[in-house]
């Protein structure tokens, strides 16, 4: 098993980050182009805790190294299931993801947590456990795990850059919306 860990800070409030998180993979994000679709499989607010639980099916373009894809049996797309929990009371977003494609040979379990550091800063903590399940040959297992960790860290870097772009756009669109509403209200007052 290999572990990939990553941590960073976004200079945006937790509310902004947790909202933008829903459109992380939209056209504003031109970095995470390996994600081609995001579908919502289920979503509900738990009446007892107020926690919003969402399951998303994420479809990615296959970006595994050629030798690995050949070994695993080539598919053009791969799927990930992400279950997220938003707790507005304790201001915490937790996302648990795992690979659906190739899951009998490779297990990738990722956990991401977004929590506020202050009113204007949000911390992102990412952990992934990568385990090759193919029996026997240790060298091969290591190579599969190494390749997956490498791809993971590349995507993590791109993911941050892309998400920053989404956050910036969200803030801009939100303030434009607000100005529009204010302008309309002023017009009404004048009239």
């Amino acid at each position, binding site marked *: 098993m290999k572990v990939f860990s990553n941590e960073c800070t976004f200079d945006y409030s937790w509310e902004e980050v947790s909202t933008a998180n829903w459109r992380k993979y939209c056209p504003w994000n031109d970095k995470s182009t390996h994600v*081609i679709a995001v579908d919502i*499989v*289920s979503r509900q607010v738990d009446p007892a805790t107020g926690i919003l*639980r969402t399951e998303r*099916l994420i479809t990615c373009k296959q970006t595994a190294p050629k030798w690995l894809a050949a070994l695993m049996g080539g598919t053009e797309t791969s*799927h990930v299931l992400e279950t997220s*929990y*938003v707790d507005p009371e304790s201001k915490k977003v937790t996302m648990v993801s795992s690979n659906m494609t190739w899951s009998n040979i490779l297990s990738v379990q990722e956990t991401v947590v977004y929590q506020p550091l202050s009113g204007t800063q949000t911390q992102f903590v990412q952990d992934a456990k990568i385990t090759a399940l193919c029996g026997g040959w240790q060298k091969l297992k290591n190579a599969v795990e190494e390749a997956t960790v490498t791809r993971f860290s590349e995507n993590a870097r791109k993911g941050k850059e892309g998400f920053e772009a989404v956050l910036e756009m969200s803030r801009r669109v939100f303030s434009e919306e607000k100005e529009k509403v204010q302008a309309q209200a002023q017009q009404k007052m004048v009239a």
Partner: protein
Amino acid sequence: MSASLAPECNEVKERYDSCFLKWYSEKYLRGKGTEDECASLFKDYKKCLTVALKERGIDQMLSEARADHKESDEIHMRRKCECLPAADC
């Protein structure tokens, strides 16, 4: 917002997504979001998606993964009973 894996579902998905985002940012995060206002839009989208998943042969794989994820609920939904034995939980 992001596209659906099924292009035929994009339109209903977009309608649902915008409804959800508005509800999430304006109500849910402000503690006023108990009612699910987007339920009917979600139903339309889900209907389209369910067919698409079946057609593409992803439904089985998805339901297996969903069953595995149920295990995370205990940790992240605070489902484990933390209250007194007498309490109703």
